[in-house]
């Protein structure tokens, strides 16, 4: 496995899961893990179990809901899907993430000019 993996930043996994569900519609946990892996182009090292912790947190906040269904290969799987409140929350969090990352970006640029 490649060496330059980053740890997932605390709190950002929820945002990624939420965005994934928003973008792709109903997905099971495995699918979410694959998608994040794919999008991050293997840059993120993900303990896939933490996806479930994240899903539980999101479900408890009412941002996603789940139901049982069958996966592509006929396996019984629980599908998660984003709720209306989840979508609103995603918009808010995405905006605040943009703000923070731009601030951090600016700060980091300052450092390097020094």
């Amino acid at each position, binding site marked *: 496995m490649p060496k330059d993996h980053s740890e997932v930043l605390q709190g950002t996994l929820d945002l990624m899961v939420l965005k994934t569900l928003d973008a792709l519609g109903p997905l*099971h*946990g*495995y699918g979410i*893990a694959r998608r994040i892996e794919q999008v991050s182009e293997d840059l993120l090292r*993900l*303990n*896939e*179990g*933490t996806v*479930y*912790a994240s899903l*539980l*947190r999101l479900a*408890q906040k009412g941002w996603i809901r789940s139901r049982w269904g069958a*996966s592509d*290969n006929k*396996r*019984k*799987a*629980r599908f998660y899907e984003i709720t209306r409140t989840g979508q609103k929350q995603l918009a808010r969090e995405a905006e605040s993430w943009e703000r923070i990352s731009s601030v951090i970006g600016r700060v980091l640029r300052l450092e390097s000019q020094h």
Partner: protein
Amino acid sequence: MDDEIRAHLDMLAERFVAGGMSPREAFYAARKQFGGLTQMKEDLRDRRALPPADVLARDVRHALRGFRKAKGVAVSAILMLALGIGASTAVFAVLDAVVLRPLPFVQPDRLMSFRSLDRRGGHPTNLSYPNFFDFRSKNRVFDRLVCYRDNRFTLTDTLPAIQVPGEIVSWDLFPLLGVQPALGRGFHPEEEKPGMHVAVLSHTLWQSRFNGDPGILNRRVHINGQLFTIAGVAPEGFQFPQDGPAVQVWTTIAEDNSPTDATPLAVQRGARVTDAIGRLKPGFTPAAAQGQMDQIANSLAKAYPDDDRNVDKTLVIPELERLAGNSRTPLWILLGAVGLVLLIACANVANLLLARGIERGREFALRSALGASRLALTRELLSESLVLGVLGSAGGILLAALILRFALPLAGDDIPIPRLLQAGVDLRVLGFSIALVFATVALFSLAPTAQIARLDLATSLKAGAANIARGHHRVRSLLVVAQVALGLVLLVGAELFIASFAYLVRRDPGFRPERLLTFGVGLSETRYNTAGEIAFSDRLIERLRVLPGVRAAAAGFPLPLEGHQMSVGFDIEERPAAVPDRPASDIAVVTPGFFGAMGIPLLQGRNFTEHDDTGAPKVLIVNEAFAHAFFPGENPIGKRILPGASSGSEEPSLREIVGVVANAKQAPLTATSDPIYYFPFKQLPWDIGTIVLRTAVPPRELESAARAVLTDLDREVPMFRVRTGEERSSASIAAPRFLTVLLGGFAGIGLLLTAVGLYGVLSYTVLRQRREIGVRIALGAARGDVLGVVLRNAMRLIAAGLLLGLGGAIAATRLARGIVLGIRPGNPIFVIVGCAALAVAGLAAAYVPARRALSVDPMQTLRSE
């Protein structure tokens, strides 16, 4: 969650296999990529614990599992709760049916009972028809005002002829109540006019007598010998009035305004015969309505002083209030008593749970040390309580439903409490029970959960059960003390009612009820005129008298214990007074053999004879109370009075008192004997009355023979209300018996539960003091000393409880004043007996643990710790 993760791992592994790994490598790689599996699962489980229903389900499962291991505790707690909640639910259902539940009519809270107030004594009294008509036409406060009067009707079209309870009402009864007849219509205003004969049948009568024939409408049916047109059939379940026997026939006041009658009831302003009920107009309060009715009453009193001077006031109260009347207080008392029982049961359950808490003290301390939060432990205890509460209440509600369904109708047939038999477990009652369960659970889990809060880890773990027990023990003792106190209140209250009931049973009714058969005969006025009625009565009594097994036969009405039925004013010859100022007293009309047949001794003068008839001088017999009240210190024999009672077209006339008889109780539930004076039937032939047979054999054996005689004389004359004298006595005290049996039962249960509570605590004390007792025995203590330790303990608890309960018990005796008859509630004997009973029960409960203490083997106990 497990399935989901397993599926995830499988899919991941498949992916790796597809990428070229061996299945085994893929399995491990998948696990690695997933992360710490066990930790993850635990993490998830902890987080997951949140949907409250799941927590509850888990705790409930846990509790059930716990109780499976402690079956004794669980079963006894559930039984006690079921008993307490069952009894409370049943009593509440009765209270609800009788007192609280609205009347089954449209806008029931606007229905008012309307009566006159007699200013002599201020008691409510019926209205005369002329007064009712004036009130009806002059008032501006009632949308409708309807009068109603009990009567009995004889139906003769099909044999055997039957007598049914009926009601004579003004025309708009059904519109007043907002009730639509199931078939046909109600009455029309013109059907109040003399000569109209229109009836509405009850659904029951329509079904039973007319086979539910829809062609019944406008059919002509013989009722009381008259042809009545059937105008309608009341809806199923319709009952009006709600008290008294279930009415089967309603007819209009034309019945009391017969054109053939010289002075029909409907025109006698002095005859107070009818009740009234009205619907308040919007915006009027009962008090405002009463104010206006008072004005009308006042003007009537001025216009007709002879008849109305004493009824210049009125009473307007909600009909529901009139109906619940005297049952209200006793039923609230019952609810209070059953509440005490429930409290005692709760204390016992709390005690049981505390005892269980002691056993589990170590377990809890350990779990607490291992990280269980206090909240979790408390929650667990609460769910245990809830499980007990729910199971107990389910049992209780079932018990209540059974009692109401089966036991109440058995007991309740005679009980003159309106709507009693309508009691059942419905949604309202269920709501009450559920509220009760939560209150109960809160109560009995209070002490055990408080214990958790005080859980001191270090000491508990070190010292084990013995140490935790000390604090628990104080609480448990307090609970027992409270139980004894509550038990005393309950017991003393019950004693008062039992003593009062014993007085009612034992006191002399003034006649001999044993070997007495009584029954009514329904003569129709159209087929029997007055002379015919007298002749029929003569023939009937003559035939009955010679039946084998009959010692004496007579007739009279009202019979003793039938209450104040007719009160008639009279003028004393020596002290004449204006009409409204004349005294009044109960009267009865009897045939010559009446006093002998009833077993009412003649004290002075002579009995009525066959010669006291229309042509003979008018005579009366009075009872002792009458003689004392109106001729104090004088010999009443030979005195003459002028009663305001006459028959037919005759004017009232002076009558000579020819005899004095002993007091026979007229009203069953009063402490004193009321004055009454008796008319010979032939000199006041109002009604043939109730036939009484004094028998030489058990009275019921003569029923069929008597019926045969009656049928032989006239098969259209029905025999009704066949009762033995003892049944009459028993029915007359049915209401206090009902109350007394229930209160006595509750007190018994309370006593038992208190004893059980005491037993539990003392048993535990002995267990705890085993070592001390062992040492004492080892050091040579006598059996007496050891017994003394336990009994002293018991006595201390009991004495503290009795002291605490004394105040409540005395308050209970205060409360009972005016409700219980024939005893002085303040008599200290009741409190003393209550204390003694509790002390005896308590010491009996202490006996078993005391014996156990004696059997302590010093060697064993000394070694055991």
